[in-house]
């Protein structure tokens, strides 16, 4: 018989199944009501919030894109003036990169990595809560500033001297720079949580060569975040210092240098591309298994390709600066490395094709998005090899050819797999299935609309149409294609609208999902849809790469964890052998207070350097409140 959950030292072995789950539910529950919502540290609740918020920013960024397409549909259009247009394209880029693409990939990882490695919560769950609030505050600051006509207008990479004190009057460039601070804090925090979760909280038996490819991709991505994002923090901080207290980092008259900005920005900015792409590649390798109905071909090659891409990502940044007048030898080196990175990408594509070739493909919506991804990404990759060549790049630099190229790799390479992954994991997120019929429709609309919108931009670029122009004259040979592009964008927008309708409707009234509706092999499908607060009643024990396919009648599990405190399992880094039963922190409101204090300090510091001094005091107080032990069972050792 089950004993009350509050008995000290109660272990799961002593309880019957129903007693076990009710004791765990009591220990791991998030308190109800507004307070609970603000204080929760459940990675699933926070992950869902993150995903939802990122998709709101996607929709907002999409509205900006639509405004630009309306403006450019006809020559000499008068809908948007040049100043507003500058803000719109800057907002579109900054929003899509910093508030959508990077956070959404980390958000999916926040939700799914702990489930896929078989643990009960992410490492440092309070830091996770903090990171979400900081992300939300940074996004809100950017959009509120835009609504107040204070939106940044210096391009998403904010080149100096345009963004410096001499040309960037007002606070618009500071809003951009401080938005960077917000998003970097949150991204770095999540990267640390994910690295530690993957290193130390894997289910027993999940050795390095049994980690799902998506989890590997997130591990590599997290290291890219850790190594690359400090560069943009250094860049944006020094820009703020130049603008606020008169330092001269970017002032050539006093020994500074404008190209220093480009080096710092792209030392972050190029790995950033892979911070977005690698999780997507991991999604493809994971999704392809249940839909090809066989294990992914070439696990070792796939993982090695991810790691190789992660390393090469740091040797490419100068290819964004080919027209900046750098030494020729440097250009040659970066051309070679830019072409070299096509190899690990190619290896992955061949592995995916081999998986489909040898499998029995089931053409459901997620697989359609994967195939759409392969097609689109290969086109984007080919134009990438083209612009890696200096003479060609010199010709098309700052034209619509580049716009076409990076939308192919970003939307084709990252958003398509993401949409496939949302369809695939929707039951685990909500407990319901997305509509397959609407899914197919939205795929074809998005795929056709995307290619019709962005392919002609290659031609527009070759015809010399520059980026970032708010209008063009009727005698230029661009208006036919521009009108076509704008009309095609309606199809693309309709596809996204249908996707959103499908997601909202399915979340409310979709077909109720079983635990493993796709017959998938990874651990997140070993628990209910959606999972309970404690993820797994008993920690799974893993014996292979496809744990749910290897033993179809029973799941191997471990018992012996306490049920009266939040307890999870710590395992060794390489072999995932059990080391300790570690406590996981309870819900807490302090991360929210700390985030509010940090937000006040960061926004205040746009206006006064003293904010860093006085604003740091409340931050310190909230952090002390956060870490001061409260005498819960989780504090026992």
């Amino acid at each position, binding site marked *: 018989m089950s004993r009350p959950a509050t008995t000290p030292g109660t272990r799961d*072995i002593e309880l019957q199944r129903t007693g076990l789950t009710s004791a765990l539910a009591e220990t791991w529950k998030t308190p109800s009501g507004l307070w609970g919502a603000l204080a929760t540290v459940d990675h699933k609740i926070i992950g869902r919030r993150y995903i939802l918020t990122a998709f709101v920013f996607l929709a907002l960024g999409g509205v900006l894109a639509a405004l630009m397409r309306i403006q450019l549909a006809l020559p000499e259009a008068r809908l948007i003036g040049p100043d507003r247009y500058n803000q719109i394209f800057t907002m579109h880029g900054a929003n899509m990169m910093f508030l959508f693409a990077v956070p959404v990939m980390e958000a999916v990882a926040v939700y799914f990595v702990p489930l896929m490695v078989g643990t009960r919560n992410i*490492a*440092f769950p309070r830091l996770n809560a903090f990171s979400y609030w900081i992300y939300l505050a940074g996004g809100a600051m950017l959009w509120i500033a835009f609504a107040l006509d204070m939106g940044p207008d210096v391009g998403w990479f904010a080149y100096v001297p345009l963004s410096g004190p001499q040309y960037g009057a007002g606070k618009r460039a500071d809003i951009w720079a401080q938005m960077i601070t917000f998003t970097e804090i949150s991204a*770095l925090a999540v*990267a*640390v949580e994910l*690295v*530690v979760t993957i290193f130390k*909280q894997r289910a*027993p038996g999940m050795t390095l060569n049994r980690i799902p490819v998506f989890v590997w991709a997130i591990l590599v991505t997290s290291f890219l975040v*850790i*190594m690359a*994002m*400090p*560069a943009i*923090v*250094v860049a944006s901080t*020094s820009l703020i*210092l130049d603008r606020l*207290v008169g*330092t*001269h*980092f970017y*002032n050539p008259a*006093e*020994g*500074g*240098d404008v190209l*220093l900005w480009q*080096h710092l920005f792209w030392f972050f900015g190029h790995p950033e591309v892979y911070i977005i792409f690698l999780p997507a590649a991991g999604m493809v390798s994971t999704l392809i298994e249940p839909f090809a109905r066989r294990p992914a071909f070439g696990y070792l090659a796939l993982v090695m390709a991810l790691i190789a891409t992660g390393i090469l990502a740091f040797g490419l940044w100068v290819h964004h600066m080919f027209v900046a007048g750098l030494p020729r030898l440097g250009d040659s080196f970066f051309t070679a490395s830019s072409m070299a990175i096509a190899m690990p990408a190619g290896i992955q594509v061949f592995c995916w094709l081999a998986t489909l070739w040898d499998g029995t493909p089931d053409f459901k919506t997620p697989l359609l998005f994967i195939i759409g991804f392969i097609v689109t990404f290969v086109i984007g990759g080919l134009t990438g090899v083209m612009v890696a060549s200096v003479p060609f790049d010199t010709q098309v630099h700052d034209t619509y050819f580049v716009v076409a190229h990076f939308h192919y790799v970003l939307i084709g390479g990252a958003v398509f797999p993401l949409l496939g992954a949302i369809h695939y994991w929707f039951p685990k997120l909500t407990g319901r299935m997305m509509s397959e019929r609407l899914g197919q429709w939205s795929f074809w609309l998005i795929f056709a609309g995307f290619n019709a919108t962005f392919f002609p931009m290659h031609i527009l670029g070759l015809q010399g149409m520059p980026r970032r122009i708010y209008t063009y004259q009727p005698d230029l040979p661009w208006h036919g294609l521009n009108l076509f592009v704008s009309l095609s964008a309606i199809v693309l927008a309709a596809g996204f609208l249908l996707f959103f309708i499908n997601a909202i409707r399915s979340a409310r009234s979709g077909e109720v999902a079983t*635990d*493993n509706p796709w017959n998938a092999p990874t651990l997140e499908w*070993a628990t209910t849809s959606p999972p309970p607060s404690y993820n797994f009643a*008993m920690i799974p024990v893993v014996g292979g790469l496809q744990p749910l396919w290897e033993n179809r*009648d*029973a*799941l*191997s*599990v*471990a*018992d*012996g*964890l*306490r049920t009266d405190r939040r307890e999870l*399992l*710590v395992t060794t880094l390489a072999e995932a052998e*059990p*080391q*300790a*039963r*570690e*406590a996981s922190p309870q819900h807490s409101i302090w991360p929210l207070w700390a985030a509010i204090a940090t937000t006040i300090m960061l926004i205040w510091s746009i206006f006064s350097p003293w904010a860093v001094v006085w604003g740091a005091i409340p931050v*310190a107080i909230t952090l*002390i409140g956060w*870490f*001061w*032990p409260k005498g819960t069972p989780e*504090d*026992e*050792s």
Partner: protein
Amino acid sequence: MREKVVLDLGRLPPHGMGTTSVTWWGTLAFMLIEGTGFALVIAVYLYLMSLAAAWPINAPPPDLLPGTLVTLILLTSLAPNILISRWAEQQDLRKVRIGMVIMSILGIAPLVVRVFEFPALKVSWDSNAYGSVAWTLLGLHTTHIITDLVDTLVLAALMFTRRGNNERRFGDVRDNAMYWNFVVVTWLPIYGCIYWLARL
């Protein structure tokens, strides 16, 4: 899905120290982030130096005394820091309490000398790019001393409460000591940069 119990975790310790602890790994990850940050600012220093016709730009090299004094204090602090880590591992509460008081003092001392280090740079942050990067390097490192000092003070206070005698707190003391080692070690290349590269 049916479950088959194949492993009993009940005998495992309820908390892990050192590399078994997730906080140890988290501290390491944050050190990697901040170490990258330091390396980048040093790279900026070298980049600007490579562009300048003369370095330092329109300023004499910084006075050696305060910076060298800070270096000596920081290096000296390593000895008690390593000892406190050892005492924490042995869970010797009395020694750890004494050690935390010593480490608090050794956290305040370099800050006092650092007050004199900024004027000893003999250039203002808004004079030229050399001044900007020298102040930024010094400021960035000062932020790290302050952060770890606050952490040390709070932890020292905690060790004197009834919650102090807990394996988790001893783990915190060890992680804090590890972070202080990082603060000291990262200072050495910065010291070389600010004081000796400017003398080349």
